């Protein structure tokens, strides 16, 4: 090798290393930007919402503009609608997921259901709202908390199906076979062996579904609508935190905006805490 080619190859190495340095720096910056965004959003929420946090939030209903109030009706409504929604979705989702793994494994039908379910997981939630409006609100001629709960159930369902299916798949067949060998009927094998082995993962799925639907706004806008006072009547419109936040944040009144920030703080931190708790139940990958 003469000196010029050595210099040439050094030049190439130099260029490659420089490109690498530029790209890795950009990757660092992108990650930094992502983390900064999370900190910015959460920090701003704390900053804006914390001052309005008080006991009144839990005891007083949403006020008309210009007077004092809280978020009691919205918090109650959110708890009710989310609770009933998850109550509808959980048994259906778990059984559907059970079908995919314990009964239909390998069948064409199960494959189609799995595909459709995966599509539903990422379906836009506003479409679900439209659907429930068409099949529940329009025939009944009025908005109701039931309609809200049903739309949240439809959003939670595919999430629960998906995690149930993933978790049941992890249960080793040897466990099932051992139970069969002892003469247990199939349903008992599923309930007593498969469910018990997959319990933590399935619980994670349900909790993640709760976290997801408790922040949903779009499907409630034209199903549960809103209600200025506390109610537990499911066949009437009902206020929920996300819808109240939407309404109050867009309004020109300062006290409404403050309440919206307090509500946003409440809902975000509940959702994030639920997420962390749910993930702590999840079996570690690998």
């Amino acid at each position, binding site marked *: 090798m003469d000196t010029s080619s050595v210099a040439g190859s050094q030049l190439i190495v130099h260029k490659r290393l420089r490109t690498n340095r530029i*790209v890795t720096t950009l990757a660092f910056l992108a990650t930094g930007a992502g983390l900064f965004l999370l900190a910015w959003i959460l920090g701003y*929420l704390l900053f804006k919402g914390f001052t309005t946090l008080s006991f009144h939030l839990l005891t007083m209903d949403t006020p008309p503009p210009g007077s004092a109030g809280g978020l009691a009706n919205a918090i109650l409504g959110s708890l009710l609608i989310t609770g009933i929604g998850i109550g509808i979705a959980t048994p259906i989702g778990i059984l559907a997921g059970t079908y995919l793994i314990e009964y239909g494994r390998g069948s064409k039908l199960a494959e189609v259901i799995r595909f459709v379910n995966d599509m539903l997981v990422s379906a*836009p939630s506003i479409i679900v709202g439209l659907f429930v409006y068409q099949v529940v609100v329009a025939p009944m001629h009025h908005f109701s908390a039931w309609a809200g709960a049903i739309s949240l159930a439809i959003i939670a369902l595919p999430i629960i199906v998906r995690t149930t299916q993933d978790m049941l798949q992890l249960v080793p067949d040897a466990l099932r076979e051992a139970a069969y060998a002892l003469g247990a009927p199939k349903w008992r094998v599923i309930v007593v062996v498969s469910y018990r082995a997959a319990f933590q993962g399935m619980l994670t799925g349900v909790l993640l579904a709760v976290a997801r639907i408790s922040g949903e706004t779009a499907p409630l806008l034209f199903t549960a609508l809103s209600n200025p006072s506390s109610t537990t009547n499911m066949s009437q419109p009902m206020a929920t935190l996300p819808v109240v936040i939407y309404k109050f944040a867009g309004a020109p009144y300062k006290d409404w905006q403050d309440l919206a920030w307090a509500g946003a703080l409440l809902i975000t931190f509940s959702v994030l805490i639920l*997420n962390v708790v749910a993930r702590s139940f999840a079996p570690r990958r690998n």
Partner: protein
Amino acid sequence: MTSAAVTATGKTGTRVHPKRIGNILFGGSAWTFGILVLILLAAVMIALVIGAFPAFQQFGISYIWTEAWNPGKDTYGALAPLYGTLISAFIAMIIGVPFSLGIAMFLTELCPTYLKRPISTAVELLAAVPSIIYGMWGLFVLAPLMQKYIEPGVISTFGAIPGVGLLFQGPPYGIGLLTAGVILSAMVLPYMVSIMRDVFETVPPQLRESAYGLGATTWEVVRSVVLPYSRVGVIGAFMLALGRALGETMAVTFVVGNSYHIKASILAPGTTISASLANEFAEADGLQLSALLANGFLLFVLTFSVIGFARVMLLRLQKKYG
């Protein structure tokens, strides 16, 4: 586990019937609810088609490419919201894709092990923040920033370029399709990152290590080994994020501007299908309601074809490499 199974046989072993009834009931309901998932998708489509029918009957198929939205005269067309939906999602992808590639590359190739879990968790949390919060943040934080600093800069830098400049002209409103796109990019970023990280991890370590062994730099490994190997999954991740961006409602509604006029400039206010639904649906009736449902149907077709394509891609990757 086995002891539970033993008691099960102890209880049911002598009686045959209850055992069978249990199987039929349990298996039957599992099957029914499995089928219910399929029915749900079909029912959503049918409900939307029925709701959209009056609008299509009134305006014909040209409803889709007509720019009109006038509740006073009761004439409607889907073009403006459709345009806004596509453009804002497109902007979101242009901003989101390079960022997500960078973060995914950082997580799989550069990140020290002790940071992997916390950063992954942070990304998951970013995905879990409800979209209404992004919407509020967009309205109160991002929109003023865009109006004061970013948009004037964009206008003075790109606005003067002939041709392309048309996209970046006009006054800095702060709200508009560009701001909506920026918020959307922040929203879809964590989805893309978490799928792409999983996809990158399907690359066998031997491939990666042999490339490093030959003296390849990190970037060369990503570009020539990781990306070619996992491209199907990466495209799947992008499409899934695109589906999300097209249908996202609450993050967009506050900042898109709610204007049914199509402007050349992406800085101008516009609307998206989902934003117009959120704003008008609860108070609409008659033909306007049907037109909104027709828009919903178009959104359904749009998102489900994108998501379906994404799922096929991800499924192909899964089948190929387990």
